[in-house]
């Protein structure tokens, strides 16, 4: 069908963010599929509050509630008894009068409860629901992994250097940033 072009040079484009905002997943082949509604279900404010309480017990750093809300939403889709699991781990920590995670983590029973605790830690440190390519992304630049090295290594695509100003002295491992 040779002939005159029919304005062929305007393509429908969708960024990954557009897709995420629209509640869809873009697969590698460009196909788009809906996310199960349960995965996006809003959680009760009290559950969010309890999730943040648990998170601050499991992680000895400042955490942002808006990111916690995203993690909690995914947790609600992955763990049927999320409220019960939150209560159980918080109760263990409170019995120990825990100030930091090291005070009570060993008391969490092995199995589903401890696995859940590790998943919450993974979510905050990696900013994702898993290591997989189709993981849900909760945050990029606020993922705690970058905080542990934030005094030396810029988060890729961001920077804190000026032109040709990165020949600083090697920073010791012991100088852990405060975050």
């Amino acid at each position, binding site marked *: *069908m*040779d*002939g005159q*072009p*029919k304005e*062929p*040079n*305007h*393509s429908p*484009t969708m*960024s*990954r*963010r557009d897709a995420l905002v629209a509640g869809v997943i*873009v*697969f*590698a*082949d*460009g196909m788009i599929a809906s996310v199960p509604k349960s995965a996006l279900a809003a959680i009760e404010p009290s559950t969010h509050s309890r999730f943040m309480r648990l998170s601050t017990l499991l992680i000895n750093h400042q955490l942002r509630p808006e990111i916690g809300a995203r993690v909690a939403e995914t947790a609600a889709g992955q763990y049927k008894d999320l409220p019960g699991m939150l209560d159980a781990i918080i109760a263990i920590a409170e019995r120990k009068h825990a100030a*930091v*995670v*090291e005070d009570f*983590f060993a008391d969490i029973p092995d199995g589903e409860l401890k696995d859940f605790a*590790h998943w919450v*830690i*993974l979510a905050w*440190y*990696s*900013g*994702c629901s898993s*290591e*997989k*390519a*189709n*993981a849900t*992304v909760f945050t*990029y630049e606020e*993922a705690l*992994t*970058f905080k*542990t*090295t934030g005094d030396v*290594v*810029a*988060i*890729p*695509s961001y*920077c804190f*250097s*000026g*032109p*040709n100003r*990165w*020949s*600083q*002295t*090697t*920073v*010791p*491992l012991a100088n*852990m940033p405060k975050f």
Partner: protein
Amino acid sequence: MASKMSAEVVVVGTGVVGAVIAEQLLDAGRSVLMIEAGPRVSRGAIVENFRNVPLGAKGDTSASYPPRPWAPHPVSSDEPKDQYLQLSGPDAYAQTFIRYAGGSTWHWAGTCWRLTPEDMRLKSLYGVGRDWPFDYDTLEPFYVRTEHKLGICGPSDPTLQWPARRSAPYPMEALPFSPGEQRFTEVVKTLGYKNIPVAQARNSGIAYDGRPACCSNNNCVPVCPIGAKYDAATSLARLEGKGATILVDSVVYKVETNARNKIEAVHYYDQHKESHRVTGKLFVLACNGLETPKLLLMSADDRNPNGVANASDQVGRNMMDHPQLTLTITTREPYWSGVGPVVNSGIIETSQGAFRSEHAGAYFRYNNFGRNRFVTFAALKKGLIGKALDQEIRRMTACTADIVAAHEILPDPNNRLTLSDKKDWLGLPKPAIHYDVGDYVRKSSEVYSLPIGGRIAEAMGAIDVKITPKFAQSKHIMGGTIMGEDPNSSVVDADCRSHDHENLYIPGGGAMPSTACGNSTITMTALAFKAADAITSQIGND
């Protein structure tokens, strides 16, 4: 002025090779129409894509460039239906490239090693591979033009230049080393090796060509967020300003010949699967080292039963790359990869020597990618919590490093691209590639490159070394439209003009008769300048 239907010169592809040729011709007063299979997107959209990719997938360069259905390119997927390249043979020719306006320079590292005089005379000097049809001194002025067009920084000290035989300085001084690179340089010096600044298409200390200076965003791959690194997308608006017409989302699928076996037109599908025909006086195919031979093979007609430009039966053969092995090293002391650009230096002297009659040379580089994305999940899997987890992520980020050994490879006609019976969204055949790195490379890894890598690791104070079990590809696609003087054994001549069609040019990595060990883009671009001069001369005589 070009229309959407015709121009004096039709350029298929908007990557660095197509963009450079187009600009030379525009500057010479010629009308140019460029045709791009993929979309034209903003830098901001790609950066946003990158940031929204899960941490575990950030190493997948294609993840930031979702392909359009009509212009597929390789993506990471376990699903057979998603596999664009149909691979076979002992080694996987698993390339990544993107079909976007601007081409794959969007996600290149910017590394620019010139060839040496010896790299172009493998047959004469070592009895292996092929010689180029011209010598280094012929290519050298085109290297200079490339360095100034792309904005390639490099050392002014001749003892740090590769090679030192050059006729003009780099337009910018080399970028500084990070602490890790400096430490690496000192370590390998004790072994007698010289880690030198790599020439790279990245603005060093100053703005250049309307682009800002590098500020160490450490994200050259998959996208420089500020455009400090050259990519061809940065030039497209300028080309339009000079009069170029650029069609995007337009997949050229056929090259049409006429009764004199000259190229008469190219045909493309738009994203609605409607076909269009574009005519011109001269045609340039610069649509990637895989897509170009695929297009030529798809264009077979009665006059050219093996495919256009393929009387020699060499189209799609001699597929090459730089097969690489990676040593992931754990050290006691911090190196802190991730400060500065992602590749900033290398040991290239190991690519040269009389041993090339027996086995491949190799180039070693300290990969300077930030390590968080590589180590975070490994640290989490250790079950650590609290302070111990923080310390482990920090230690693994600082005290692990990748040392890459990239090898040269010889042209082998059995390493071949053909048309698969699997079809893409438009119904066009997917590329099938059979590949074997060959004994020349394997022997190098056994007796040369890995032993050197082991010594480097030991000198770095390695407490653990993991070596990739198989050769990976460097994504430097070469050889599929190989250059030579003999029309019976090569596809294009010394100006990258088809032996078979007087108005068809096929410049780029596909033309390279030897790979050496350094990244191919600077040589591809130098060939583009050489071809542009030939085209300008030819069209002026028509």
